[in-house]
């Protein structure tokens, strides 16, 4: 008996839907939020929808409705939160859109990247590793974050134009960009964690 050896995949849409025990919430996050399936999302608009939805499903609307009522509301509200979280995040939205359109991305196992991207990644990672030795650590880490965010924004643009091709080749390219976004996002979150640790010290 040992701590779980390998992780297969992260949380996904299907698993949460499975939790909803007979409540058939709208089939997709896009429908739930009443928007067209696509990468461009009006963040102000979905915020309004989000509050409307929470007013209906939040467990506080089921107080005193017993354990069963609470359970159902918790699951529905969690589903709405997950949908909102996905639609707001550039990376999660990209992955979800690909899955929704029948081109799921296998983030964990498919790790082949082009050489140019790998070089850029490595250089960023090296700089991140050197941050603590830098004379001004806080400025050094902020610079890494800035560069990674610029890279992220490039990847997003790449994703959008590949997606717009609406061809099998285009979807494949879009999936590649999404995988790259995943790596950059991971790097950004590590850099932010380090930034925080520097503040704490």
């Amino acid at each position: 008996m040992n701590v779980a050896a390998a992780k297969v995949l992260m949380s996904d849409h299907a698993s949460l839907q499975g939790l909803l025990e007979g409540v058939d919430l709208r089939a997709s996050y896009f429908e739930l939020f009443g928007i067209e399936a696509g990468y461009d999302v009006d963040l102000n608009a979905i915020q309004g929808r989000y509050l409307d939805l929470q007013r209906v499903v939040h467990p506080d609307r089921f107080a005193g409705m017993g354990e069963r009522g609470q359970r159902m509301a918790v699951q529905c509200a969690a589903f709405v939160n997950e949908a909102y979280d996905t639609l707001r995040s550039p990376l999660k939205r990209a992955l979800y859109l690909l899955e929704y359109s029948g081109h799921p991305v296998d983030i964990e196992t498919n790790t082949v990247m082009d050489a140019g991207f790998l070089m850029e990644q490595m250089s960023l990672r090296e700089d991140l590793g050197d941050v603590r030795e830098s004379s001004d650590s806080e400025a050094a880490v902020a610079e890494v974050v800035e560069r990674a965010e610029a890279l992220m924004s490039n990847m997003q643009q790449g994703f959008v134009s590949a997606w717009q091709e609406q061809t099998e080749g285009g979807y494949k390219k879009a999936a590649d960009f999404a995988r790259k976004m995943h790596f950059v996002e991971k790097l950004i979150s590590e850099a932010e964690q380090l930034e925080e640790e520097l503040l704490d010290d």
Partner: protein
Amino acid sequence: MLLQISEPGQSPDPHQRKLAVGIDLGTTNSLVATVRSGSAETLPDAGGEHILPSVVHYGAECTMTGVEARRLAAEDPLNTIISVKRFMGRGVDDIRALGDVLPYRFTRADQGMPFIETVQGEKSPVQVSAEILKSLRRRAEESLGGDLLGAVITVPAYFDDAQRQATKDAARLAGLEVLRLLNEPTAAAVAYGLDQQGEGIIAVYDLGGGTFDISILRLHRGVFEVLATGGDTALGGDDFDQVVAGWILEQAGMEMSALTPEQQRKLLDSACAAKESLTDADSTEVSFEGWVGTIGRETFDALVDPLIDRTLKSVKKSLRDAKLKAADVQEVVMVGGSTRVPRVRERVAELIGKQPMTGIDPDRVVAVGAALQADVLAGNKPADDLLLLDVIPLSLGLETMGGLMEKVIHRNTTIPVARAQEFTTFKDGQTAMAIHVLQGEREVIDVNRSLARFVLNGIPPMPAGMARIRVTFQVDADGLLSVSATEQSTGVAASIEIKPSYGLSEGQITDMLQSSYTHAQEDREARKLLEARVEAERIFEALESALRKDGDILLSKEEQVHLAGEARRLAEATKSTDSAFVVKVTEEVAKASEVFAARRMNEGIRAALSGQAVEYFEPDNSQNDRPEE
């Protein structure tokens, strides 16, 4: 269980008003509040006192709480438990790490949760807290003249899962139905926001007796959305007393270790008195065991500055998490008695660049906010007026290979939330798997808090790597975690054994509940029957009203007839004097109406979708123009 869609602006009949209270279960002081004739007020005891000191005295003859108990603190420190909130959901090692002078004798350290040795035997922090809650419950029931439907109990936003669970267990021991655990800063924001019709970004700085919390919220038309929260569950006014006590000893040339528990208590009392007089005076006299001296504001400020620094660091971190700058904050609300210290107000104003709001009594604001939410949750007020969207304060994750923590749910994620993770087996034919659940921010597990260890049993034997075990973390609106697991390829639900790292087991709670019943057997039966009937009536009313409103639209003729029959059957069962029978029929009818409830939920969502959500992003600040549902 039926979705209650209340019409906006339409309150239930006055005779149906349910008694619900808000309880601020504080480290130093506790309060209970309720909404009466439209406004929230704290309830006084028979002697007119609103504040109940969070002190419990276990005497040979009886148990006392509040002022009476506190009077005995110096005389009988071993049996008088002060600031027990600091021990909730904590292990003995954590308590030692608080670094305080504690006169208590802790026993059974091996069990994770410490027990305190008293003349009435060993008492867990949960039991001590339950005494405080019982006392507040009695006060509320006497002054409101009836049994309480339930209570909203506040906890520091930064409380972890173990501390929240311990608080909920204490309520259970006190016989209180918890309508919701509410974060203290969110409660304060509710009291403030509803009072001032606030809009925009608010920071709530809450420095209590033993805990510090900071929350950054966005207020928009009755929705209180917590953007980030942070703090320190072991930092508060008590620490101010400790540093002043340290200074007194230094001046007097004495050693803490040489003092008796009685002297230690007296020392802390004089330190606290000095702190309080320095709120208005520039200097004050202190005396201890023959030594007499003077402490000035400047000396005091220098002593507490390092503690205030720690709070300001949390404020900056939370602003960062919310992706905001100090200048974005419209108002700072000050909560907790320790915000009376002038140096605290000065330093907060300096950081945010605004004078903090101190208009509402910082001691009462949390209880008032909790009472306002309790009123909504009890169904006395249309729920549309108020919606609280809170977050989890600390990340939740699992131990992976190499003693590292993998985060499954990140801090400041809006709750409720559910996330799943899949695992596979490591060896051929493996049928069990150990999972270690952690809470905290660092990568290395040692610095994070161990919440529980789970063993998943009943995995069907198969070759290594073939099993697909999906572990689902779910955090409810109280911020409490539950975990479930299924093997995906076979659909077998793996059973879970939970061993909370710092808490009471279900068995311990049941034992405590049983031994605490002083009622005679009949009393217990009568209470059970009463509770069963209340629940049955609630389901009956909900079903009837749902059938009236939506029966024609959402149900076939056949379904309507069937559910109407079920409702009648329930009404009939309610007349029975057999509580088990009433519970059984209630369960059956609730189950039969589940499909209807699900359809109503979807209908609610459909209505929300077709409502003109457009008005949310128009610059329109009027309050009462939300579309009718």
